[in-house]
C-alpha cells in the first residue's frame, strides 16, 4: 500500500539526496513497493519518477502491526543489528581480570535511541557474583556473557574509543576513533550513530511496513523520509561509497527510538528489505 503522493515522494528523495551527500540511486533503480523486478524501471540519473496517482499495494490493504507488539516480537533479533551495548572504561586481556564499566545513566541512555546499554552497576556486581565461574573466561567473552551485549564500546579516558563485536568467534574492532567530547548519554549516542555512519536500522518488515530503530530525536520529526541502504544488512559501519539506496521510506508512527516506516518505493529488483538494513534519515532543518 502506497500512501504518499507524488510531490511528497519527489521532495523526500531530493532531501535524502542532499542529506546523504551522495549520488542517490546510482546503480539502484527504484520500483514501487512490492513490484516485480524489472517492471517500470526508472532512469538511474533521474530522481525517482513516482507513478502518476496512487498505486495500490500488491498484497492489498494491510494495516501496520501495533508498534508495541511488533517490538516485542523482534526484541531478541541478532545479526548485523547492534542492539545491546556494554560500555567499558577498561577491558583487560587476561582471563580472570574484570573490566571496568563506564558509569552511565541507563534510563537516560535507553530513552535516547533504540539502543540499550547494560546497567553498569548490575553488570559490575554480576562479575563479582560470578567470580568463580569467570576465572578462566576471556574478559571479552565474559562481558558478552554477563551483559548480553552484542556490541562492546571500549571508552578509555585516554586514547581512541573502539567498537568491538564478535566476528568469527573473535573479538574484533569494527571501528576505532576519537571519542566524544563528553561521556553524557547524548554525546555517546551521537558518537555512535556518527561512527556507524547511518541513522537507523531495519528491525523487521511486515507487508509494506518496516520497523526501524533509530534515535529518539530523529524520529520525533513527523513524517520524516528515509532511505534504506542497499546490501547493508550485514555491515555495522558504512563507508560513504556504501550509502546507496534500495528503497524510500516514510515515517508513519514512532515510539521513543522505534519507528514504523511505510515503504514508499523500492529500487529495481528489490522485493524485500532485510532486517539489519541500515537507514539514512532526511536531515530537516
Amino acid at each position, binding site marked *: 500500500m502506497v500512501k504518499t503522493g507524488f510531490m511528497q515522494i519527489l521532495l523526500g528523495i531530493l532531501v535524502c539526496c542532499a542529506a546523504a551527500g551522495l549520488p542517490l540511486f546510482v546503480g539502484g533503480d527504484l520500483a514501487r513497493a512490492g513490484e516485480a523486478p524489472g517492471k517500470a524501471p526508472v532512469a538511474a540519473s533521474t530522481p525517482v519518477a513516482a507513478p502518476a496517482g496512487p498505486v495500490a499495494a500488491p498484497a492489498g490493504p494491510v494495516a501496520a502491526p501495533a508498534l508495541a507488539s511488533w517490538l516485542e516480537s523482534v526484541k531478541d533479533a541478532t545479526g548485523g543489528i547492534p542492539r545491546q551495548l556494554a560500555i567499558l572504561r577498561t577491558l583487560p586481556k587476561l582471563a580472570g581480570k574484570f573490566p571496568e564499566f563506564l558509569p552511565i545513566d541507563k534510563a537516560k541512555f535507553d530513552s535516547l535511541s533504540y539502543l540499550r546499554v547494560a546497567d553498569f*552497576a548490575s553488570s559490575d*556486581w*554480576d562479575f563479582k*557474583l560470578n*567470580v568463580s*565461574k569467570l576465572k578462566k573466561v576471556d574478559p571479552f567473552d565474559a562481558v558478552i556473557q554477563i551483559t548480553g551485549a552484542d556490541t562492546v564500546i571500549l571508552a578509555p579516558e585516554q586514547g581512541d574509543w573502539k567498537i568491538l563485536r564478535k566476528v568469527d568467534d573473535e573479538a574484533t574492532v569494527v571501528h576505532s576513533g576519537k571519542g566524544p567530547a563528553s561521556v553524557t548519554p547524548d554525546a555517546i549516542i551521537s558518537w555512535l550513530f556518527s561512527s556507524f555512519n547511518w541513522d537507523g536500522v531495519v528491525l523487521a518488515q511486515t507487508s509494506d511496513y518496516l520497523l526501524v530503530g533509530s534515535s529518539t530525536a530523529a524520529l520525533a520529526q513527523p513524517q520524516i523520509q528515509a532511505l534504506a541502504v542497499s546490501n547493508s544488512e550485514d555491515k555495522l559501519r558504512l563507508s560513504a561509497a556504501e550509502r546507496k539506496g534500495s528503497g524510500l521510506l516514510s515515517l508513519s508512527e514512532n515510539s521513543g527510538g522505534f519507528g514504523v516506516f511505510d515503504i514508499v518505493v523500492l529500487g529495481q529488483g528489490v522485493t524485500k528489505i532485510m532486517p539489519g538494513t541500515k537507514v539514512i534519515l532526511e536531515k530537516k532543518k
Partner: protein
Amino acid sequence: MRFLKSIVLLLGFCLGPTAVAEVIDAGHLRIELDAKAGRALPKGKKKDKYRKQWKAGCQRLGAALSAGKGPFGFGAFASFSCFRGADLVSGSKKDSAWLVTVVDGKTEAKFVLKHKDHRGYSVVAEYSMPSSEFTLEFFADDEFADSVAYALLESAPMGRLLTKSDLSGSPPQFKGRYWRAGKAKDFKFTVPKSPGYLVIYRLQWSEAEQRWRSDVVGSAKRVSVRPPKKEKKKRGSILVGGEVVYETTPAVAAALETGNLWAQSSAGPGAQHKATAEQLKEAQIALAAAAQSGKLGDFLLGKFDLLSSLLSSTASGYVGLRYGRQVLPGVGGLGTLLNKTSIFGLLVEIRGGPAKGLRYYYDLLPKAKATVPGSGGPVDTSIQFSRHTLGYSFDFDPHLLVDRVTIDPKVGVWTFNARLPTEIDGDGLVSNTANFRLGTTVSLGLEVGLEELSDWYTIRGWYGINSGFSLLKTGGKVTSNQFGIDAYFTAGPTIPLFGVPLKTALMAFYFFESVNLSANKPIGELAPGDSNISGVSYTVGYAGIGAVLSW
C-alpha cells in the same frame, strides 16, 4: 506405546529442564551433618552426647544464618531444619534449595554452603579448618557460631536480607547486631570489621546460564558502629548489645515497596575469604587447645586466656619410639654382618600452634660386629650409624584414595662408620674389606607419605631419601633410599599427666632400605690388606614395633 514414548521424549527434548530464572528470596535452609564423610560416631553414652552436641550446634548455626539474626545484620534464610545424614533432628522436612553441610572429618572440619537447581547442587561457599574431636562442642560458643555463619554468608551471593520494615528515618537507615562474645567478658578471637559499604540488589539464578543475575538498586554506607558493652552478671561480666548502622538512599526505600532486597559487602562475595578462613583457623586452634586440656568450659567463660591456650596448643604433639630388626635374608660376609643389625627410632612431632608440622627424628643403628670367614682367615667387620634430623611436614587432603598426603623436607647430621667386606673370592670367602668412616656428614632428605586414617588406626605408606655429605678431607657420600609402611593403633589407654591427657598407641612397621656409600677418593684409612675401593651398596629390611604417646 513406542509412539507415545517418542512423543514424550520429543516433548521432553523441546521443553528441556525448567530453565526459568529463579528469583532468590529468603528461603528454607537445610543444615546437615555429613554422616558419610565425617568421623565414625562414638559409641554408648558418647554417641548420645555427640548427637546432642550436633542438635545444639546446628540450632546456633542456623540461628546465626537466619535473616537479620546473624552478625552485622547478615543472615539470608527464613527458616532452617537440622539433619544428621538423612535423619531429621529438628525443624521441618520441607524441600530447600539451600544446604549447609558440616563435615566433622578425620583430617579436617568443613562447612559448605550449596545451592540446588534442576541440575543438582553446586558449591557456593566452602571453609575448612583442622580436625578436632571437639568441633561440635565449639558451637556452644556464640562467637564461634558467628564466625562460621559470617564466613558462609560473606561468601554467598546474598549476605543479608533487607525488608521494608528494616528501614527507618530520613535518610533511610537500617541496623544489624554486632558480633557476639558468647559467655565471655571479651572477644576471644579476632573480630572482622563490618563491611564499610553494601551493594543492594535483587537476585536471580539463571539455570540455563549457570550464572547469578542481579538488578542493583542502590548502595548503603556504614555510618556508625556501636560495640557491645560489658554487663555485670553473678559470675562476672559479659559483653552484650552493640550494633552497626547503615544509611541508604530513597531509591532503595522505593524499591523495597515492591519486594525484599539483598545486601552484600561491596567488595563482593568471598572477597574476604582468606582473612575469614584465617580467623576461623585461629578460633579452632584456641578452642581445640582448650578442649584438649579439658578446659573448654573455662575458655568459653573467658577464664582461660588465649595465650595459655596457644601455649597449650603448641605443646600438643606426639612422641613415638620404635625398634626393629633386620629381616631380609643376607648372603655372604656382608649379609652375615647386616643380619646382626637392629635399629632404634624416635620421632617427635609438634601437632598444634605456630610450630605445627615441625618434626625431629633420631635414628640409631647400634654398632654390630661380625667375624666372617675370609680367604686369609677370619675377618672382623662392623657397622654403626646415628642420624639426627629436623623436618617440617606439609600435608593436604587429596580427596582421592587416601586421607592425607604428607611431604617432609629434612636436614640433619649423619654419622656413619663401618668396616665392610667389599670382595669375595671364588669360594665365597671375604677377600677384601674397607673402612667407611665418613665421620659427621651433613644430611639432606625428603619424605613423602600417604595416610589412611580412621578413629582407631592410621596406615601410612612412605618413601624417603636421605643423602649425607662427609665433611672429612676424603669427602664421600652416603645415600639411603627407603620405603615402608607404618600402622598405628590408637587402642591404648589415656593417662592423665599434670592435667594433660596422654594418649597411648601401638605401632608396627616395616621398611626397606637401600644404602649406597661412595667417595671421590678412597674411603677412610687403609688398613693392611684393605682394598682401595670407592664405593659399596647394600640393602636391608627392618620390621618392628613401637609405642606412641600423644597429647
